[in-house]
């Protein structure tokens, strides 16, 4: 916690160009507000600053009650997925200069999950689906030595190993917005990671779980998830591969 605070206090070198941006943040305090509302903040930013830096600046200098999640702040932990200008992104990976700064930048919590406070949602339904697809290696042999895999075998599921469980995909899915029972793209991505792993023996179990009304067949190929993923995972493709595995047996 100390490092970012110090960073915030260091005076930037003179001559570095800065600009003022208006941040419109969708606020909600369950103890005070009946409905969420938009609040605007003006912040002085630099070309190297990210949306997360703007949120920090607001929290530390203007309004300490602003609530949001972040841990590593470098695109690995997946805590700060939020809807920025109508698109799901990680606040720590979105440079403010890449957005249109002539207009206010709209920041709100991800959709489809219960809003708890400001930019924080209840992630439990999301993790429940994740747990349901058994996201761990199922193998009968004892791990006495390495389980050898060829390059091609490893390549088969490489894309889906990149998931950081930020929920940007699942909360961008229009099917998930209207049907909270749907497993959602993230759970399917993590099932894909084990289904196509040659070392794993639980593929059939996971395929059976996903061969459900609320499983892969709920996917309507809107590609919102693939576009939202901050790790660039081809999610719709992964879902299509699971569908094909189910059809071909």
């Amino acid at each position, binding site marked *: 916690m100390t490092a970012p605070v110090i960073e915030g206090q260091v005076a930037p070198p003179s001559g570095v160009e800065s600009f003022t941006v208006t941040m419109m943040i969708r606020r909600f305090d369950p103890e005070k507000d009946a409905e969420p509302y938009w609040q605007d903040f003006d912040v002085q930013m630099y070309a190297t600053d990210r949306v997360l830096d703007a949120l920090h600046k607001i929290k530390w200098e203007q309004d300490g009650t602003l609530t949001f999640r972040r841990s590593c702040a470098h695109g690995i932990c997946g805590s700060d997925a939020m809807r920025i200008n109508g698109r799901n992104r990680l606040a720590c990976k979105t440079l403010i200069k890449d957005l249109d700064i002539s207009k206010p930048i709209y920041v709100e919590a991800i959709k489809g999950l219960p809003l708890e406070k400001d930019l924080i949602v209840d992630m439990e339904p999301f993790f429940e689906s994740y747990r349901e697809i058994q996201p761990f290696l199922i193998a009968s042999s004892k791990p006495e030595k390495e389980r050898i895999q060829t390059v091609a075998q490893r390549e088969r599921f490489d894309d889906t190993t990149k998931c950081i469980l930020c929920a940007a995909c699942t909360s961008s899915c229009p099917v998930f917005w209207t049907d909270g029972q749907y497993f959602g793209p993230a759970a399917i991505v993590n099932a894909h990671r084990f289904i196509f792993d040659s070392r794993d023996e639980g593929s059939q179990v996971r395929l059976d779980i996903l061969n459900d009304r609320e499983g892969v067949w709920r996917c309507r*190929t*809107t590609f919102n998830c*693939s576009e939202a993923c901050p790790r660039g995972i*081809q999610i*719709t493709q992964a879902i*299509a591969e699971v*569908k*094909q595995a189910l059809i071909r047996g």
Partner: protein
Amino acid sequence: MWSWVLHRITGVAIYFFLLVHILDTALVRVSPEAYNAVINTYKTPIMGLGEAGLVAAIGFHALNGLRIILIDFWSVGTKYHRLMFWAVIALWVVLLAGFLPRHLMHVFGG
């Protein structure tokens, strides 16, 4: 996402058309006169525009449906989904360019 929204809207619109269509066609079993009377009320410019909309909706729904089938069954379908969407739009425009002038001439030409 917009291809999906359009697909859903055209799908629901086609559903309601089919509902009416089955009812009015079934009328011929009730009495041919009643059938003719109902069909004659359709011969108005407003219904003509509705028909244009119907052909547009069915054209898009059919072409985009083929695109979705390719996304699901063709191994590189997901890779080319955007290209295929524009191909759908292009084919759709060609289809309507062939149909609309003739149809509208028929409707408004008297």
